[in-house]
C-alpha cells in the first residue's frame, strides 16, 4: 500500500482576492510507504503546501488527499485523527518550544492524544533517545539549550506521537555541517527503527542525495521529476534548467563528459566520483 496519495489536487491561497495564488495545480502524487522521500524545489514551488495538505492543515480547493488509502476529508470532524497519523515538523521548530522543561515539551503531543501517564513516559523516553537526547536533559528548560539541541527536542515532540508518516520541513536548515549530519542521520535511524514513512523537505541537493531513498522535485506548483537519487541527478541539465543546483561532483562528471571522456554522469557522492575517476585514469594508464 502507498503511504499517501494526492489525486487531482489543487490549492489556491486567498481565492477571490487580488492576492490569489495557485500553490499546487491539479497534481497527482503517490508517496511510497516505509522509505524516506525527499521533496525539493524552490520557494513557491508548492512543496510546503503539499506537506500541509497531507496532514490536513490545508483543505484542497479541489481533488482528493488520501492517507493509507482513505480520503482524509471524508469525515471532516475526524481530521484531528489525521494529524496524529501524519506528524508535521515545521521549519525552525525550535521557535515553537514553550514548556518549562524538555520532558514536558516532548510529552505535550502524547498528552493531547489522551494517553495514560506510563505510556506518555515510555514515548517521551523513546523519542528522546531517537534524537540523541539523554535523560539528564529532561528537567532542563528548553530555552537553556543550544540551537541544535532545541531542534532535537522539537522533533522528538512530534516523534513521540508515533506518526505513521513523519514530515519534516527543512530539518537541517541553519545548522553547521556537524549538526546537520547529526540530525539527518538520526532521521534515517528513526525511519529504520520505526519502519515508518518519512518525507523530508530540503533545499540542499547534497543532503537529499545522501539521505533519501527517493526524490520528488517540485517546480511551478507541479511535480516535475520523481526517482532515486541516481535517476534524478543523472538529469542534471534538467535540474539546472529549472534553477536547482546539483552536487559539485555531479557537475565535475558532466564537465568531463563534455570534454569527451567516457564517464557516468549519474554520480552524486564523493565516494562514487572517486571510483569513477579512478576507473577512468587507472583504465587509461593500463591500456
Amino acid at each position, binding site marked *: 500500500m502507498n503511504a499517501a496519495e494526492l489525486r487531482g489536487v489543487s490549492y489556491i491561497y486567498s481565492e477571490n482576492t487580488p492576492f490569489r495564488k495557485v500553490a499546487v495545480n491539479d497534481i497527482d502524487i503517490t508517496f511510497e510507504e516505509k522509505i524516506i522521500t525527499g521533496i525539493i524545489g524552490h*520557494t513557491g514551488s508548492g512543496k510546503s503546501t503539499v506537506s500541509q495538505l497531507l496532514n490536513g492543515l490545508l483543505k484542497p480547493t479541489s481533488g482528493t488527499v488520501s492517507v493509507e488509502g482513505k480520503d482524509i476529508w471524508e469525515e471532516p470532524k475526524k481530521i484531528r485523527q489525521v494529524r496524529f497519523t501524519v506528524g508535521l515538523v515545521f521549519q525552525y521548530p525550535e521557535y515553537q518550544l514553550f514548556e518549562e522543561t524538555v520532558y514536558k515539551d516532548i510529552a505535550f503531543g502524547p498528552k493531547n492524544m489522551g494517553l495514560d501517564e506510563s505510556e506518555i513516559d515510555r514515548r517521551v523516553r523513546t523519542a528522546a533517545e531517537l534524537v540523541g537526547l539523554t535523560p539528564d536533559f529532561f528537567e532542563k528548560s528548553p530555552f537553556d539549550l543550544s540551537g541544535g539541541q532545541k531542534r532535537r527536542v522539537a522533533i522528538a515532540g512530534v516523534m513521540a506521537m508515533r506518526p505513521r508518516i513523519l514530515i519534516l520541513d527543512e530539518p537541517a*536548515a541553519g545548522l553547521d555541517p556537524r549538526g546537520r549530519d547529526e540530525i539527518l542521520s538520526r532521521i534515517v535511524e528513526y525511519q529504520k527503527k520505526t519502519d515508518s514513512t518519512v518525507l523530508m523537505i530540503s533545499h540542499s541537493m547534497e543532503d537529499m542525495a545522501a539521505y533519501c531513498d527517493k526524490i520528488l522535485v517540485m517546480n511551478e506548483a507541479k511535480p516535475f521529476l520523481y526517482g532515486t537519487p541516481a535517476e534524478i541527478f543523472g538529469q542534471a541539465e534538467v535540474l539546472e534548467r529549472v534553477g536547482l543546483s546539483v552536487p559539485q561532483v555531479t557537475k565535475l562528471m558532466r564537465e568531463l563528459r563534455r570534454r569527451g571522456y567516457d564517464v557516468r554522469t549519474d554520480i552524486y557522492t564523493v565516494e562514487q566520483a572517486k571510483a569513477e575517476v579512478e576507473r577512468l585514469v587507472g583504465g587509461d594508464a593500463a591500456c
Partner: protein
Amino acid sequence: MAETIIRTENLSFAYEEEGNRIPVIENLNLEIEKGSFVAVLGHNGSGKSTLAKLINLILTPTGGTLSLFGEKVDEKEMSDDALYALRQRIGMVFQNPDNQLVATVVEEDVAFGPENLGIPPAEIRKRVDDALDIVGMRAFAKHSPHQLSGGQKQRVAIAGIIALRPDVIIFDEATAMLDPRGRADILATIEKLNREFGTTVIHITHYMEEAIRAGRVIVIDDGKIVLDGTPREVFSAVDTVKAAGLDVPQVTELMLEIRKDGFDFPADALTFSEGADAVEAYILKTRNKKEHS
C-alpha cells in the same frame, strides 16, 4: 599594502556561569585590511558570532585590545558619542530576515537608521533610493515586507545598513535561512558592495561554496583562529577543516581521497572545472609517459 582597519591584540571574551569562567574568545590576534572580503567559518559555538559582536562593539572584551580605524577602543575612556560614531561605521546583518525589519513599508524600513541619525529628509530620500538600487529592490520600495521572500527581506535589511554608509559590514550567517536563489542574490550583493563600493566585508557562514568566493578565509574553533589564508590554502588543509567540524568543497575532498590511493592529483582544487582540469592533466601526463617509454 592596504590600511588595517580592524586590529585585535590578545582579544579575549569570557562570561561567568554559576561562578565558572567560560571563555569564548581567547587571545585572538587578527588584522583586517580596508576593502577586503573575509569569510569566517566555524561550527556553532566556535566563537565566530562573539567575535563579530566584539568588533561591532555590541560586546565589551574581557581582555586584550581592539583597534578600529587606527584608533584603540577603550569603552571606559571614550564618550558615548565617540562609541556611537564608531558603531555607525560597522554595520551588521543578522541571520533571521523576519527579525530585522521594523517598518510596514520597505522604503520606510530602509529609512529607519538614517532617521535615527538625524539626517535631513532630502538626504534620507537619496540614501534610501541609492541603497534600494544597490540591492536591486527599488521596485519593491512601496511594498510591505511580509509580501517578500526571505532573500528579498534580507536584501532590504542590507539596504537599511547601506543607507547608514558604513565602512565595514558584518554578515552574521545572513544566508543561513535562505533558499539557494536567495543565497545567490545575497552573495551577489555582497560581492557588488565589496568590489564596486569598496566596503570591507566580513561574512560569517556555514557554506563552503560561499567562502571560496572570499579573498581570505578564517577558520575559528574554540575561540581561536586555526586557519587563515586564501580559500585555496585553507581548504587544502582538509583534516584541520574537518577537525573544526566543517566541510570542504566536494571536489577538494574528492582530490584528497584520490591522492590517498597514490594518484598524483592536486590538493587545492576548489571548483568542478578545476577538478576536471586535474583529471585531464593527469590523463595527458600518463599518456605522454607511455609514449616516451
